[in-house]
């Protein structure tokens, strides 16, 4: 093993024959009895060559993560069992190795990075120790050498001031820095294979672009084979040499990135690529004359302030936000995490109290109203949250969730129930399904239920706070369509909060770009996408993955 990376990287021309690092043949993993299907993955075959990035693409439940965990030998033993096939890694079948043999290879010859850099690092251990742990397990370096190696790899993954960061804890770092630490852990021993399980899904676009670049760079320099799991075709377009498409545990199509993205042959792949929203907004008629449903003037929210014995520390989550949403219009607020977009949404609904400025619902100013006076305005603004798995009470039937709001405002139970059944049909679900519990629905169905719950209050303003961000692309497309449909049907003013530019391009009439609590740019969606004025907006657009490809999802605007 050499101390650093070889200085001359392998030339990865398309013609060079690559040494195969990983060769999965006919892998089948059995699900426990009583699951919705027999096998988590069935007859999966794929190869990864040295210095090659192979993307496994698929929606949730496609078996892409199970495949990755089987290779690592990290499947939950009692629940999932490989029953057929081979996993040839550098020529030897991993499925025949003992637990100890596998353990010796993990972290050294094959390593893995995960989706959530927030939770994948041990919160009570310094990041230096977490990288050093890999060395402790697999090598017998002394303290000095160990620290040297840790500092080297931290430098290689472009962490600023590695010496100072050595003793930092994960919570003191940003999401991007944490993912760099994870990558450092994975690559410190120069493995032959790196498995990356959605490593950028939880990151902001600009950070995502940096991390993708880093993975590519490190892998090219060291000739590492990479198995990259993702659901995002934009990411695939940016990083993949070859692509394997999975659906319900089976490989439906595989080929070079260009083949799959430009000429997909399987209908499922075609549908997936067709569902990716385009970055080109459709033409939309401006709504200058519709009445204003929601307006904020100088809205601001400052957190913190002095407490007993405490130093003053304030955070301006949002400053001087002026927005107008007309009836029948969708205003998008676009920004990265910490930009203040959700703060604005929560202030408008008065889930949190703004510290400055005014909020007008039609003509009523509600920013400073007391809880009791606010009550009658509550039903006029409704919100749909990001995570449909956590925003429905798991112990209540869907009916109870939907009718709770109207009944609080004096609607009789029978009327509310009748309305709930009507709304279920409207959002594309069976009216009889109201008697079921949230866990009996899929993510997309739950988000439909959340929309029905919001509509039950007959609001004027609907706020969607990252309402489609947790959904698979095909489901996302359907829910976006539903949101657009209810906007038209009820002439709703919609405030659409998202970090996803593709989604914003497709659904918003106008967009506002927020950065560090301030609105940096505002205009009609077509205008902003065609000619972004501010540097930040340009940087944001440049970071959007897969710009080079035109994906299919352009929907007809009205």
């Amino acid at each position, binding site marked *: 093993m050499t101390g650093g990376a070889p200085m001359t990287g392998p030339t990865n021309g398309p013609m060079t024959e690559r040494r195969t690092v990983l060769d999965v043949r006919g892998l089948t993993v059995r699900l426990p009895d009583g699951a919705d299907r027999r096998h988590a993955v069935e007859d999966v075959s794929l190869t990864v060559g040295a210095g090659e990035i192979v993307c496994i693409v698929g929606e949730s439940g496609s078996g892409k993560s199970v495949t990755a965990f089987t290779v*690592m030998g*990290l499947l939950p033993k009692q629940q999932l069992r490989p029953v057929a096939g081979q996993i040839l890694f550098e020529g030897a079948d991993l499925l025949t190795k003992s637990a100890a043999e596998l*353990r*010796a*290879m*993990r*972290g*050294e010859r094959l*390593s*893995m990075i*995960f989706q*959530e850099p927030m*939770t*994948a*690092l*041990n*919160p*009570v*251990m310094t990041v230096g120790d977490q990288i050093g*742990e*890999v060395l402790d*397990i*697999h090598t017998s370096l002394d303290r000095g050498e160990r620290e040297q190696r840790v500092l080297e790899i931290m430098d290689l993954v472009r962490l600023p001031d590695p010496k100072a960061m050595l003793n930092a*804890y994960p*919570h003191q770092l940003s999401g991007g820095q944490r993912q760099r630490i*994870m990558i450092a*852990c994975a690559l410190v021993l120069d493995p032959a294979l790196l498995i990356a399980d959605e490593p950028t899904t939880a990151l902001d676009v600009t950070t995502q672009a940096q991390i993708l670049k880093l993975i590519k760079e490190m892998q090219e320099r060291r000739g590492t084979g990479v198995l990259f799991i993702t659901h995002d075709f934009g990411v695939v377009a940016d990083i993949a040499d070859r692509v394997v498409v999975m659906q319900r545990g089976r490989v439906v199509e595989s080929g070079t990135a260009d083949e799959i993205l430009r000429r997909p042959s399987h209908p499922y792949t075609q549908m997936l690529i067709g569902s990716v929203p385009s970055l080109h907004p459709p033409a939309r008629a401006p709504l200058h004359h519709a009445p204003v449903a929601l307006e904020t003037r100088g809205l601001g929210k400052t957190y913190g302030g002095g407490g*007993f*014995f405490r130093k003053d520390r304030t955070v301006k989550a949002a400053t001087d936000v002026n927005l107008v949403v007309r009836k029948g219009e969708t205003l998008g607020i676009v920004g990265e995490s910490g930009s203040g977009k959700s703060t604005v949404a929560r202030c408008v609904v008065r889930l949190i109290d703004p510290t400055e400025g005014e909020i007008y619902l039609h003509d009523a100013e509600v920013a400073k109203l007391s809880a009791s006076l606010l009550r009658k305005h509550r039903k006029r603004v409704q919100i749909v949250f990001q995570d449909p798995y956590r925003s429905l009470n798991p112990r209540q039937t869907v009916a109870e969730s939907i009718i709770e709001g109207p009944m609080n405002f004096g609607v009789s139970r029978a009327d509310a129930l009748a309305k709930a059944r009507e709304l279920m049909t409207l959002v594309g679900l069976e009216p009889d399904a109201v008697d079921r519990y949230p866990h009996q629905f899929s993510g997309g169905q739950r988000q439909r239920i959340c929309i029905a719950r919001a509509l039950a209050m007959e609001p004027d303003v609907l706020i969607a706070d990252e309402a489609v961000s947790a959904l698979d692309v095909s489901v996302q497309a359907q829910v976006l369509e539903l949101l657009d449909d209810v906007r038209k049907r009820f002439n709703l003013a919609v405030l659409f909060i998202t970090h996803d530019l593709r989604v914003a391009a497709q659904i918003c009439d106008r967009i506002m770009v927020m950065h560090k609590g301030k609105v940096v740019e505002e205009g009609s969606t077509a205008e902003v996408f065609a000619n972004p004025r501010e540097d930040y907006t340009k940087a944001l657009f440049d970071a959007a993955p897969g710009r080079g490809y035109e994906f299919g999802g352009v929907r007809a605007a009205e």
Partner: protein
Amino acid sequence: MWMFIGRRAVATIPVMLVVAFVVFMILRLSPGDPATVIAGDYASPADIARIRAQLGLDQPVALQFVSWIGRLVQGDLGISIFSNLPVTTLIGQRLEPTLMLSLTTVVFSVLVAVPLGAVAAWKSGTWIDRTVMVVAVLGFSVPVFVLGYFLVYGFSLELKWLPVQGYKSPADGIGLFFRHIALPAGALSAFYIALVARITRASVLEVLEEDYIRTARAKGQVESKVLLVHALRNASVPIVTVIGLGIAALIGGVVITESVFNIPGLGRLVVDAILKRDYPIIQGLILFFSFLYILLNLLIDIVYTVLDPRIRY
């Protein structure tokens, strides 16, 4: 860190003052003339007057409070009505056995319970896990005095391995000390072992589901270290909370245990003082225990920040 400890220490002052005020008012708010209550049913008017003067009850309440606080600050908790000894001296005499019993119990319980709970979590669903949990239920259910008498019957009367009762200070020889403390500490520990083992199991079980445990395994870490290095420390905050609460609740158990094993500790002092209505002792003990609790809370808060770098007050 020191800033934090200093800030927290200063913040305990108002709490102590409130406690002192409540303790002071207990005597003044009890029905009737406290001097009459203290003197008992058969006291002469002269006795009552003497007690009243001794307690300073003939002066205005505000003045009484101020002078009482003044004496408290100097470490003067008053004088016992019956033995005429300073309360501080009485507490001092009885402190060691109680402290030693509590300490032995806590250390023993933690040393047994934390590994037991951690292993149960690690092997959750197996017979090891189920056995630990059944033992825990037993530990919860058997009252300390019942267990105490059983232990005495078994180990002292039948096997004659250990003394039946009494207390020996570590100064008299460490072996002798442990022989005497073993049974009372053992009886007292059952409940705490059950409590701490259960919370350890629950807490470790939750932590074992975390992503960073998977990360540790992906690094090739062996299971024992996954459990010790990664899981246990992350699971420690709720465990420490329960240990702290347990120590606070220990006092009740100590009173009973000291009676069962005839140990001359604070528990016995409390019981005797209440039976004799020796108010200065009762007040002194309440203050003393409150002070201990406050100190304990401070200690636990400090331990939190050591265990989890994310916790900063």
